């Protein structure tokens, strides 16, 4: 029986020892050389043509979603609504964060993604002073990057909210975010990694509330890490979404955003103008006209507790609303 030979692991030839005198300069040069060779090989490769469906202009609409469930559900609703009307749809779900997918929309990687009005405005125009729902929407239309557009907003809302455990809330008598001010230095805040540099995150909490937390722990966007981290005590305060059914199910307390850092968050489609034509916009507008917060919470419950497939949940909702 031959020993399993792994070319990576077995020092097969005496030459292996020569790499020991690895000189950084030559190695780096060669590394770059290989990288360049690889790059060139691909640049001129027919693969690029074979792989790419025509994403610019005609045909397929590439629907993206952010890396949290709420966004995934809405993206499924958009995708299924468009499919039902005969559009070609491609899915590119679970893209990290706004910081990653908005440039992805600009460069044509995706064509459409569910967005949240306030958070999007704070991303494209940090430190904005508008707060009222309509003002946010009006401001957005002006501020979105060249080539992108926001469509009709829905009444459905899903906002960031700072959450503590019931125990923490009772112990310190916490009701609002301002109540955290005297305690923050001793506390750990958890949120998605992008929060560290976001205005509607660590930056705004400091500027608007004067909150300086002892430490910040990078978790996920209102997902299982965040939920676990606050319930097991890894963090004291965590960022979740108001639509998260877990807030009601577990002993968690939402802190009121008394200084209004988190703006109104109406759910709306952010699109690449060129890729989404008038007909597709009508479909999306019809979806937004029907979408509301209780429906989203109910669908989230089905997906999380009943383990239902988000696509099927989306289809159910569409047919119940006469959209498919």
């Amino acid at each position: 029986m031959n020993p399993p030979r792994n070319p990576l692991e077995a020092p097969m030839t005496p030459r292996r020892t020569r790499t020991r005198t690895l000189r950084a300069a030559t190695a780096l040069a060669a590394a770059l050389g290989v990288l360049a060779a690889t790059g060139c090989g691909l640049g001129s490769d027919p693969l690029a043509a074979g792989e790419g469906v025509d994403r610019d202009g005609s045909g397929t609409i590439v629907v993206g979603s952010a890396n949290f469930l709420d966004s995934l559900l809405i993206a499924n609703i958009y995708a299924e609504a468009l499919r039902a009307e005969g559009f070609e749809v491609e899915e590119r779900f679970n893209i990290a964060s706004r910081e990653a997918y908005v440039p992805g929309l600009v460069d044509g990687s995706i064509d459409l993604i569910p967005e949240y009005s306030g958070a999007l405005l704070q991303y494209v125009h940090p430190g904005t002073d508008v707060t009222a729902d309509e003002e946010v929407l009006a401001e957005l239309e002006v501020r979105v990057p060249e080539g992108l557009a926001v469509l009709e907003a829905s009444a459905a809302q899903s906002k960031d909210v700072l959450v503590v455990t019931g125990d923490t809330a009772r112990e310190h008598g916490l009701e609002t975010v301002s109540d955290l001010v005297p305690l923050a230095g001793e506390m750990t805040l958890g949120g998605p990694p992008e929060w560290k540099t976001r205005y509607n995150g660590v930056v705004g909490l400091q500027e608007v509330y004067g909150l300086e937390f002892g430490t910040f722990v990078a978790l996920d966007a209102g997902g299982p890490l965040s939920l676990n981290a606050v319930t097991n005590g890894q963090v004291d305060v965590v960022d979740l979404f108001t639509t998260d059914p877990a807030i009601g199910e577990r002993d968690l307390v939402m802190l009121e955003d008394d200084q209004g850092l988190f703006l109104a968050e109406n759910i709306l489609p952010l699109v690449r103008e060129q890729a989404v034509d008038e007909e597709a916009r009508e479909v999306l507008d019809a979806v937004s006209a029907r979408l509301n917060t209780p429906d989203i919470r109910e669908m989230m419950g089905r997906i999380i507790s009943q383990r239902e497939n988000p696509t099927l949940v989306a289809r159910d909702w569409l047919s119940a609303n006469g959209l498919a």
Partner: protein
Amino acid sequence: MNLIDWFADPAHWVGPDGIPRQVLTHLLYCAIAAAAAIVIALPAGLVIGHTGRGAVLVAGLANALRALPTLGLLIAAVLLVSPHFGSQLAFAVPALIVLVVLAVPPILTNAYAGVVAVPPQVRTAAHGIGMRPWQVLLTVELPCALPLVISGVRSASLQLVSTATVAAYVSLGGLGRYIIDGQAQLDYTQMLAGAVLVALLAVAVEALLLLLERALVSPGLTGRLRRLPDPDGDPAAAVPAAAPSPGRAP
């Protein structure tokens, strides 16, 4: 070039997010995982090589472990393990499980291959001078297998250093922090800095293990002895492979 600016910025060198702290955290995860993998895989590999039993299992198991997708394993471990631990451990334990799984196959296969590759005459000689099986294993086969064992540890460490970045995906520290945060914040410089640091660390760890190998491996095995002036004459006597075969042990 903003990468240079990034490294030159003193703010990146201090505090809990600073480079020294993240490098140490990164090394800590790698070291714990490597130690656990050695404790699991080395004895198993040696014993299987010594007895010749379970060889098929080694190859199959090592390959299956290698094929396990890191991301899937990490997420499964988080879902299964986290609820049973409090605070930092809730995510540290799953990340370590993934890293140990990654480090076991190279160490296991190399320990096994190292023992199997010991020349039969050497083993017979050891038996012949009255050594017990465990003595043969520990004082003859292990030292002879050491170059391969350490090379297994080396390739495991290389993979650990580049994969320990996943710890950051589940909220922990280490150099992955720069990469995950860089992606979430779309800060290419930060990501690039993280990637460069990981590569540098991998090279440094590799160099360190090579030094360790020099210190640990018997000079008789490497041939280095031959180049040294040896007043006692015949250096070949130090090479176990050259030992005369005494015939079958009783």
